[in-house]
């Protein structure tokens, strides 16, 4: 213990004397290494940030990886059965989709068809295609005057969908699935719908496809759901006050009836399947798949990342050549010092270690500088462009980039210091000290 700490302390003093005697040289080594380490940090940080942004989007709109998804044709007793099986469950949630128009009664909505409001006519012509070709579908608003109303997808939920799709609450609150259903349906809008209402100031009356009575909805919150078109979320059981189960999922643009299940909920999946088949749903119409977009996306992203990291590594290599060059020159210059230190009893391994430690320290200092620059740059970018690119807002420096920077610094230190260290250890004392 004492021996080890004696060595360590000696090497700290010797290394410190070496660096202090060559401050400018150490600084120049750092400069030559800086760009390389910075390149590695930037590439890694960029890749992480892009990855996170994409991943967040994908999770919002498609569901977390591993989620089991069942798509069902909303025919016969399918919807009724599914709602019945899944009522009150948290590990599996059914989503129904129906078109709804909120606003002035009896008018054509500003976004007929339920498309994005800032893309007029986007979904305006309701085309549908089958074996006979494509043709226009009547919207039910023929002849109605244009007015202040917004058409949106009304999504009925049997439970909290957020364990599969982590919607971010923008304002207000998310649906409360506990307690009795309310007679006036409570709605949570997505940000696109909220924006449409803000823009067109529509009065709040809701027409539902398939319902003859118009409901007065209560908006309780706004969430970011990753979608592009206006949508609103509501408890299925509240929706059932206004619509029959068969009408719950008649949305033209919706995916029909969708069930999201956690990977662990295989029992529910079996039960649901059995009940559906018993209720007359054809077995072959029950499709289940598992969300694995992340994996597919990551392979593409990581390919990009490796290409960029490869280029960064090249820049780093140039820096290593610089540090190696300086290191070799320094050893050449310090031959007498090293021989002398060995003559007075310094073990050669310790000397090699000190030479290596000096470059490692240079590498680490460079890494610290590069990471610091990266953090500051990211903060500046987030402050300046955050309003234009939401993905840059409130972003944090990814720790992976920090690790990559430190690793790059260490690798550069080892590559640039090893050869000089070996040389230093090999200096023959007898030859140097021979007067």
């Amino acid at each position, binding site marked *: 213990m*004492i*021996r080890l*700490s*004696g*060595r360590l*302390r*000696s*090497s700290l*003093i*010797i290394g410190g*004397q070496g660096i*202090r*005697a060559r401050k400018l040289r150490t600084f120049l080594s750092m400069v030559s290494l800086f760009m390389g380490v910075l390149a590695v940090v930037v590439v890694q940080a960029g890749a992480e940030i892009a990855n996170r942004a994409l991943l967040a989007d994908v999770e919002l709109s498609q569901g977390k990886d591993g989620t089991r998804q069942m798509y069902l044709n909303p025919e016969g007793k399918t919807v009724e059965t599914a709602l019945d099986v899944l009522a009150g469950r948290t590990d599996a949630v059914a989503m129904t989709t129906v078109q709804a128009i909120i606003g002035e009664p009896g008018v054509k909505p500003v976004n007929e068809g339920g498309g994005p409001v800032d893309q007029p006519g986007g979904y305006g012509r309701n085309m549908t295609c089958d074996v006979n070709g494509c043709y226009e579908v009547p919207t039910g608003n023929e002849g109605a005057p244009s007015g202040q109303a917004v058409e949106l997808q009304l999504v009925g939920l049997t439970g909290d969908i957020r364990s599969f799709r982590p919607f971010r609450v923008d304002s207000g609150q998310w649906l409360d699935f506990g307690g009795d259903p309310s007679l006036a349906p409570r709605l949570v809008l997505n940000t696109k719908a909220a924006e449409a209402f803000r823009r067109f100031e529509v009065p709040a009356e809701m027409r539902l496809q398939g319902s003859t009575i118009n409901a007065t909805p209560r908006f309780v919150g706004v969430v970011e759901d990753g979608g592009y078109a206006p949508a609103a979320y509501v408890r299925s059981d509240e929706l059932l006050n206004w619509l029959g189960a068969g009408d719950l999922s008649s949305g033209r643009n919706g995916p029909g009836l969708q069930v999201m299940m956690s990977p662990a909920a295989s029992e529910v999946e079996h039960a649901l399947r059995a009940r559906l088949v018993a209720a007359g749903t054809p077995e072959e119409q029950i499709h289940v798949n598992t969300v694995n977009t992340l994996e597919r996306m990551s392979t593409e992203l990581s390919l990009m990342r490796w290409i960029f990291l490869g280029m960064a590594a090249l820049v780093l290599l140039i820096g290593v050549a610089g540090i190696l060059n300086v290191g070799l020159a320094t050893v050449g210059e310090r031959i*007498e*010092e090293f021989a*002398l*230190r*060995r*003559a*007075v*009893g*310094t*073990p*050669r*391994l*310790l000397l090699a270690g000190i030479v290596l430690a000096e470059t490692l320290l240079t590498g680490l200092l460079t890494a610290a500088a590069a990471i610091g620059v990266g953090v500051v740059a990211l903060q500046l970018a987030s402050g300046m462009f955050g309003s234009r690119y939401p993905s840059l807002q409130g972003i944090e420096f990814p720790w992976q980039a920090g690790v990559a920077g430190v690793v790059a610094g260490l690798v550069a230190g080892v590559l640039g210091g090893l050869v000089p260290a070996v040389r230093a250890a090999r200096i*023959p*004392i*007898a030859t140097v*000290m*021979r*007067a």
Partner: protein
Amino acid sequence: MTPLIRLAGVTKTLKGQEQPRTILAGVDLTVHSGDSVAILGRSGSGKSTLLSVIGLFDRPDEGQYLLGEQDITRIPERKAAALRSAEFGFVFQRFFLLKHLTAAQNVAMALVNGQGWLSRRKRKAKVLAALDRVGIAHLAKHKPPRLSGGEQQRVAIARALVREPRILLADEPTGALDTETGNLVVEALRATTDHGCGLVLVTHDRDHAAKMGRVLRLSDGLLNPAAERVVV
């Protein structure tokens, strides 16, 4: 009494440019505590080579080398480094001081070598004592470029003495000094033997050699008593 060091039949062959050259061809040398030995010899006769074998910079090809009762003929480098630190002190013709360090730091170098550890306070005390022994304690904070040759060599001697070695090896320590300064340095070296140190001094100066207890001559790879024993 067991001698400090004892070399018997030591040989050393160095790889020359064309063919190997035998520099030491069977050297016998015994040094006791308090002994002072001068080694004379023509340039190229192998005096420095002999010192580098004694000082464990190098190992003999053949023969035997005893330190006290320990056979160190084939000692591994790691142990040799520890012995160089604990048992030997070295002084060279060129002073080999690091010019970016002060005199005191240059002396402390022999203490900060990864062989054991002394607190900063103890180190300072030892360094000052060593500098005091060669009469330059007042120059502790000076850096070598600001010291005269004689002062620099005395810093080097202080560095060799700071660990209180049992054997002091000096390779032409006065070679770069004028006569008067040289005399001072040689006297400082010889004084160490009063404390029981063994001294081996390589020199071209017969006056300096004459101040040693024994004078030997290295020629044809062999060490023999010098014929020209000069008495001052």
